[in-house]
C-alpha cells in the first residue's frame, strides 16, 4: 500500500510522539510561536510606518496623481506652468475615480519678517478644493483658514511663525521670481496658523489663495499643478490615459514619481523584512532539526522495529516529517495569534519620539500605528512550513537509512 494510505497511522504516531516529550515539544512550540509572533509584530510596525509616511505625503500636498508641466518635477519653478483649462478640470471632476482635485500654484519663495527670513514653498490654493483633501485644507490652530480664491491672507505653520519671530496678524514679505524671471515681492498678513504632524511641513509650507499667488508671479490664468486624490494607491492605467487626454501637453505623474524616496524606502523595507523572516525561519529550522535528531536518536529502536515489521522507508521518513510539520503548524497558528494580539495591543499607536528625536524634522511621524498585512503573515507561514518541512527531511531520511537491525540493537544496548 502506498505511503499516503498510511497517513492516518503516521499522523497518529506523529501526534503521540509530540505528546510524548512534552517539554521538548513545548519548547519547540514556544520558539516557533515567539519567532512568528514577533516577526508579525515587527512587520506590522514596519508596514505601519511605511503607510504612515506614504499617507503623510499623499494627504500632505502630493495626492495620488498630479498634472504638471513636463519639466516641473525636475525644476519646480514658475517657468514650468500651464494654463488652467476650466473645461478639462470640469471633466476631470466628473470622473468616478476622482475624490478630490485641486489646482495650485507652487513656487519656491522667501518669507521675510522684520527679524528673520526663510526659504519656503509657497502654494496658491482654492480653499474649497483643498478641504478634506490636503494639508492646505486643515483647520487652523489659531486665527482663520483661507476663505476663497482671492483671499490675501497667509496661512503658515506654528514652527515657521516661531522661527520668523513674528505673530499672528503681523505682515511679512514674500519674494519670488515672476514669469519673466524678475523678482516680485508683496506684503501679506498672517491670518492663520496651522499645526501639522511633521515639523518639516510646518517649516516649509506656506499657503495663500490661488489668485494672490498668481498676482505675485504675474501669471493670472496659469497654474503649476493639479493634484488628484483617488480611492487607492494603485492607480489604474485607464485613468492615467484619461487624464492625459484631458491635458495632452502636460505630464501625468503619480505619487511614486513625485515621492521616489518613499518608494525606495518601502522597497528597502520589503527587502529587510524578507531578510528578517529568513533569519527567523532558519533559526527556528535549525532548532527544530536539532530536536528532531535528538528524538529520532531516542526512538531508534521503535523506528527499527517499524521497519522490521514492514513499514517502508518512505513511511518512516514521512512520520518524522509529519511530526515537525504539525509542530510548525501549531506553532505558527499560536504565533499568528500572538502577533495579531500584539498588533491589537498597539492599535492606538506607539510614540517613538522618546527614541527618535529627529524623526519629526526628517519627515517621519513620531507615532507608529501597526498595519497588519495578510500577505506578510501568509508569506511568513508558508516560508516556515516549506523550509521547515524541507529541513526535516534530512534527519528523517537519516532515521530511515540506517539498517533496522542496527537501530534495534543500538536501542537494546
Amino acid at each position: 500500500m502506498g505511503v499516503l494510505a498510511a497517513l492516518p497511522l503516521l499522523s497518529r504516531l506523529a501526534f503521540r510522539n509530540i505528546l510524548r516529550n512534552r517539554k521538548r515539544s513545548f519548547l519547540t512550540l514556544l520558539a516557533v510561536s515567539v519567532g512568528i509572533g514577533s516577526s508579525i509584530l515587527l512587520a506590522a510596525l514596519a508596514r505601519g510606518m511605511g503607510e504612515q509616511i506614504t499617507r503623510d505625503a499623499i494627504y500632505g500636498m502630493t495626492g495620488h496623481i498630479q498634472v504638471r508641466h513636463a519639466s516641473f518635477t525636475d525644476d519646480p519653478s514658475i517657468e514650468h506652468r500651464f494654463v488652467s483649462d476650466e473645461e478639462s478640470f470640469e471633466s476631470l471632476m466628473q470622473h468616478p475615480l476622482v475624490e478630490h482635485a485641486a489646482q495650485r500654484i507652487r513656487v519656491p519663495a522667501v518669507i521675510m519678517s522684520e527679524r528673520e527670513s526663510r526659504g519656503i514653498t509657497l502654494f496658491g490654493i482654492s480653499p474649497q478644493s483643498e478641504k478634506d483633501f490636503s494639508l492646505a485644507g486643515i483647520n487652523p490652530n489659531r486665527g482663520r483658514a483661507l476663505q476663497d480664491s482671492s483671499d490675501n491672507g497667509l496661512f503658515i505653520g506654528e514652527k515657521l511663525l516661531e522661527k520668523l519671530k513674528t505673530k499672528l496678524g503681523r505682515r511679512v514679505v514674500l519674494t519670488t521670481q515672476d514669469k519673466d524671471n524678475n523678482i516680485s515681492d508683496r506684503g501679506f498678513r498672517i491670518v492663520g496658523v496651522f499645526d501639522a504632524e511633521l515639523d518639516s511641513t510646518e517649516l516649509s509650507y506656506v499657503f495663500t489663495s490661488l489668485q494672490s499667488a498668481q498676482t505675485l508671479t504675474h501669471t493670472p490664468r496659469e497654474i503649476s499643478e493639479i493634484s488628484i486624490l483617488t480611492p487607492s494607491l494603485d492607480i489604474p492605467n485607464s485613468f492615467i490615459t484619461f487624464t492625459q487626454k484631458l491635458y495632452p501637453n502636460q505630464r501625468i505623474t503619480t505619487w511614486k514619481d513625485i515621492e521616489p524616496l518613499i518608494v525606495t524606502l518601502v522597497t528597502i523595507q520589503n527587502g529587510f523584512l524578507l531578510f528578517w523572516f529568513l533569519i527567523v525561519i532558519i533559526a527556528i529550522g535549525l532548532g527544530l532539526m536539532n530536536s528532531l535528531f535528538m528524538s529520532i536518536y531516542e526512538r531508534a529502536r521503535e523506528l527499527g522495529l517499524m521497519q522490521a515489521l514492514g513499514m517502508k522507508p518512505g513511511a518512516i521518513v514521512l512520520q518524522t516529517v509529519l511530526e515537525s510539520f504539525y509542530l510548525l503548524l501549531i506553532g505558527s497558528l499560536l504565533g499568528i495569534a500572538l502577533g495579531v494580539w500584539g498588533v491589537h495591543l498597539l492599535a492606538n499607536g506607539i510614540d517613538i519620539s522618546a527614541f527618535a528625536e529627529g524623526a519629526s524634522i526628517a519627515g517621519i511621524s513620531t507615532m507608529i500605528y501597526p498595519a497588519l498585512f495578510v500577505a506578510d503573515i501568509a508569506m511568513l507561514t508558508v516560508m516556515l512550513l516549506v523550509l521547515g518541512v524541507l529541513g526535516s527531511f534530512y534527519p528523517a531520511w537519516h532515521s530511515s537509512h540506517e539498517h533496522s537491525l542496527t537501530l534495534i540493537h543500538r536501542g537494546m544496548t
Partner: protein
Amino acid sequence: MIGQIELQDVTRTYTQGEETIHALHHATLTLEPGEFTTFYGPSGSGKSTALNIIGGLDLPSSGKVLVGDASLTEMTRSERADFRLHHIGFVFQAYNLIPVLSAIENVEFIMQLQGITGDERKERAASVLKQVGLSGMELRRPGELSGGQQQRVAVARAIASNPELVLADEPTANLDSTTSEALIELMLELNETYKSTFIFSTHDPLVMKSAHRLIELKDGQIISDSNKEVA
C-alpha cells in the same frame, strides 16, 4: 502459500576490530511449507541471525536466501519491507512493541499497513488479544504491561493477519509455563488450520517438545537436524 525456504551456503560475519565473528557459517537448509521448526543452541550460536536472515531483516555476507520464488538477497530494501509486511509475522527476542501505541493499536499496526480498514481490523485485533489471554488490557500502553504480557501482545500482532510464515525469536522466554503452553497450543492450532510455516528459536524444552523439526546450531553452524543426519 509462501513455498519452500532455502538457505544456500549462507554465511554472516561480523568484524569487531581484528576479530571476525561467524554468526552463521556456511549454512545450507531447506524448510518445507507448513513445517513447525525450532532452532536451538547455546547463546551466541546464531539463532537470531538465522531468523533475521530468513525474514529478510539481515542480509548474508555470502550465499543465497530463497523464499518460494523470491530471492530475498536480490530484493531492494523497500521490496523486502513489503515482503515482510505481507508474508511474515515476527516476534522478536526483545523490544517488540511501539511504546506510543496501545496494546490493540500495536496488534492493528501490521493490518493497518496492509490496508485492512476500520471495524474488521479492530475486531480481529480484539479477538487475537483475547486468544492470548489479554482481554481487558486492549487500551494499555506497553509501559503498563508486564514483560510476559508484552510478549503476548507481540505474538498476537504476529499472528493477527494470518501470515504464511511466522518467525519467533524465543517467544516464551519471559513467560510462565502455563502461558507458554497456551501460546504454543495456539500456534500449533494455527499451523494446523492455516498451514502456516513456523520457525522458532528457543531454549525452552516445552517449545522443543512441540516442534516438528529441531535444528541445532553451534558457532554459526548447523550441527544437527532432526530431519536428517548432518555429516
